[in-house]
């Protein structure tokens, strides 16, 4: 009889004819006639019950008919996000409740009129369902983020510095073509990198707002953009500048996308490969000017190579948890001692490399002297990082590296060995250029 009561109330709580049909089929299993069931239900329409009573009875009903176990989950039950080994439909029910209240979201996002923060807008936007339609007005911003515009700008700056340091007269056309070609190559490399790393980027805080993660463009679109940048870029470098620079550009793209990106998840050697990738742009700038791989080009490359270690090791020190969870194999996680030693070693190495400047006739003898303060400072911070290994020192080292590099290149430029014999003002006595 109690089961019978449960049946009746259960029917009241759910809408739809299907319920009644189901109940009828169940009732027939319970040996009661269908007609009497319907008559009984129709009689008691006006009665009210409490919700708790209803839920209790519902549970009774559900437990007695095992086939319904999946459906009866009233909203008061606390659900945890713990996965259990039961089948997927139960798990999906568990996941449903903590999710958003379903919104019939239209194409337009709710505008926040008085909200100046773009971050808050992005956060709100991230919680909604969005149509995967490309908004053409958003494309420049999307492409800028896809190509990691700030990083690209830094890369082009180092290439331009490489060109400027080369001992040839300044040719604006070649300079512009080399810069633009490097710009396009860097855009390509960054886009392909993001294309490969979508699920990893989704899981790291630093990268979870990238365009492909957010679905602002499709993977095919990203690859097409990369090819549309890469092919003209490398062609421009090969035909407009010289084949060596074009080759270096293509090599750099290959190293970054096909070596560095997969290696990030396999071995710590990715940091060394990444440092080579960072070292190539100034070499490209130099070869764009001279057409050959001079020792001066390699010296500039060595500056960038050594600089990468204090820069990246300090950055990765504070991201250890994200890297570990994402499955990235970085020195800071797997070989912390090595990470600190390498950062210190290469910071001190920058002092030595600066001393090589006059030796290779790239700069005057003033360069090691004027660059000594900043080199000593970064070495000091690297030493503190090595010694104390805490977040504070890592952050200091990282931020120092950000201004150290432009400063170093600027100083090198001002101390550049002059090639003009007649010019005797303030510049050291000129020597015949070491041409190869």
């Amino acid at each position, binding site marked *: 009889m109690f089961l019978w009561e449960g049946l009746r109330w259960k029917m009241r709580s*759910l809408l*739809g*004819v*299907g*319920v009644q*049909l*189901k109940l009828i*089929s169940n009732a027939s299993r319970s040996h009661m006639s269908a007609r009497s069931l319907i008559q009984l239900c129709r009689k008691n329409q006006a009665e009210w019950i409490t919700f708790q009573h209803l839920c209790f009875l519902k549970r009774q009903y559900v437990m007695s*008919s095992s*086939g*319904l176990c*999946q459906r009866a989950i009233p909203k008061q039950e606390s659900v945890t*996000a*713990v*996965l259990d080994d039961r089948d*997927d439909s139960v798990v*999906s029910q568990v*996941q*449903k409740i*903590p*999710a*958003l209240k*379903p919104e*019939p979201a*239209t194409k337009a996002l709710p505008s926040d009129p008085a909200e100046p923060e773009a971050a808050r807008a992005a956060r709100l936007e*991230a*919680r*909604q*369902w*969005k*149509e*995967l339609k490309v908004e053409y007005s958003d494309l420049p911003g999307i492409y800028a983020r896809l190509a990691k515009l700030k990083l690209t700008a830094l890369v082009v700056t180092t290439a331009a510095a490489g060109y400027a340091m080369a001992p040839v007269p300044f040719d604006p056309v070649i300079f512009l073509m080399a810069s633009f070609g490097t710009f396009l190559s860097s855009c390509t490399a960054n886009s392909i990198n993001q*294309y*490969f790393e*979508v*699920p990893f980027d*989704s*899981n790291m805080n630093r990268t*979870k707002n990238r365009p492909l*993660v*957010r*679905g602002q463009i*499709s*993977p*095919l679109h990203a*690859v097409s953009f990369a090819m549309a940048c890469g092919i003209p870029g490398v062609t421009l470098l090969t035909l407009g500048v010289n084949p060596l620079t074009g080759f270096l550009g293509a090599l750099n793209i290959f190293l970054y996308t096909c070596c560095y990106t*997969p290696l990030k*998840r*396999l071995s710590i050697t990715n940091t060394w490969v990444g440092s080579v990738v960072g070292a190539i742009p100034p070499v490209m700038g130099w070869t764009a000017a001279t057409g050959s791989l001079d020792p001066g080009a390699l010296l500039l490359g060595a500056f960038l190579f050594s600089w990468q270690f204090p820069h990246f090791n300090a950055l990765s020190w504070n991201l*250890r*948890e994200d*890297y*570990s969870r994402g*499955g990235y*194999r970085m020195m800071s*996680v*797997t070989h*912390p001692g090595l990470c600190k030693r390498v950062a210190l070693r290469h910071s001190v190495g920058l002092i030595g490399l600066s001393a090589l400047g006059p030796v290779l006739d790239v700069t005057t003898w003033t360069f090691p002297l004027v660059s000594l303060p900043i080199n000593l400072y970064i070495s000091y911070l690297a030493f503190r990082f090595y010694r104390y*290994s*805490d977040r504070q020192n890592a952050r200091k080292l990282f931020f120092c590296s950000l201004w150290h590099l432009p400063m170093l290149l600027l100083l090198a430029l001002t101390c550049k060995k002059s090639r003009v014999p007649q010019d005797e003002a303030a510049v050291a006595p000129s020597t015949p250029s070491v041409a190869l």
Partner: protein
Amino acid sequence: MNVKTGSYLIFRSVRPCYTRALLSLRSPCRGHRQSSSQPPKHAKRAERTGFSPAASSKYDWIGPPDRLSNLRPIIYHIPENETPLERKLRHLRQETEDWNHEFWTKQNFTFTKEKEEYVQSQLTTKGLSERDDDGRKRTLSSEEMAVFYKHFLDKNITRHASYNREWYRRNFTITLMMARVTLHNTWRILTGQTRGTGREKGRTT
């Protein structure tokens, strides 16, 4: 009528508004929905995510990051007269998405669980309670946590490497297929064939 079909019908009847959209957008095999013993996989996904796009929408929809896997679910639009290639692509994308979701959910869950266990064990060895005097949870220093992070990475290296390989393979396949579909559609537009009539006639890719 068996119980599961009945329960599916109940569910449909209590959901607001979008049942028609659900039917038209979700079932990969049209017309099989009523007789199947389980709701089609896409319907299950729509239930899981709790969202259905408007019936008139012609685009895919992407949702907020999932709480467990941090990946964003996509509900794919099924065009009328979908070609077999498009269907294959959609299924592959759906399957890859589910596979990814499963991997990352497991990864994140395992990581959090093992991290908690590690913190507990470290605190126990030190003889400290889980919460300090202010009632806040005790945390370990970065150096102590670093031991755990290294251990976690080393323990899972083979799993990560095989996931990596599989992900790259799927990503390439999906992108190539998307390119084929786009080329095919462009060719159809250029040669003036409409979707309804030109199906399977002049497939070049």
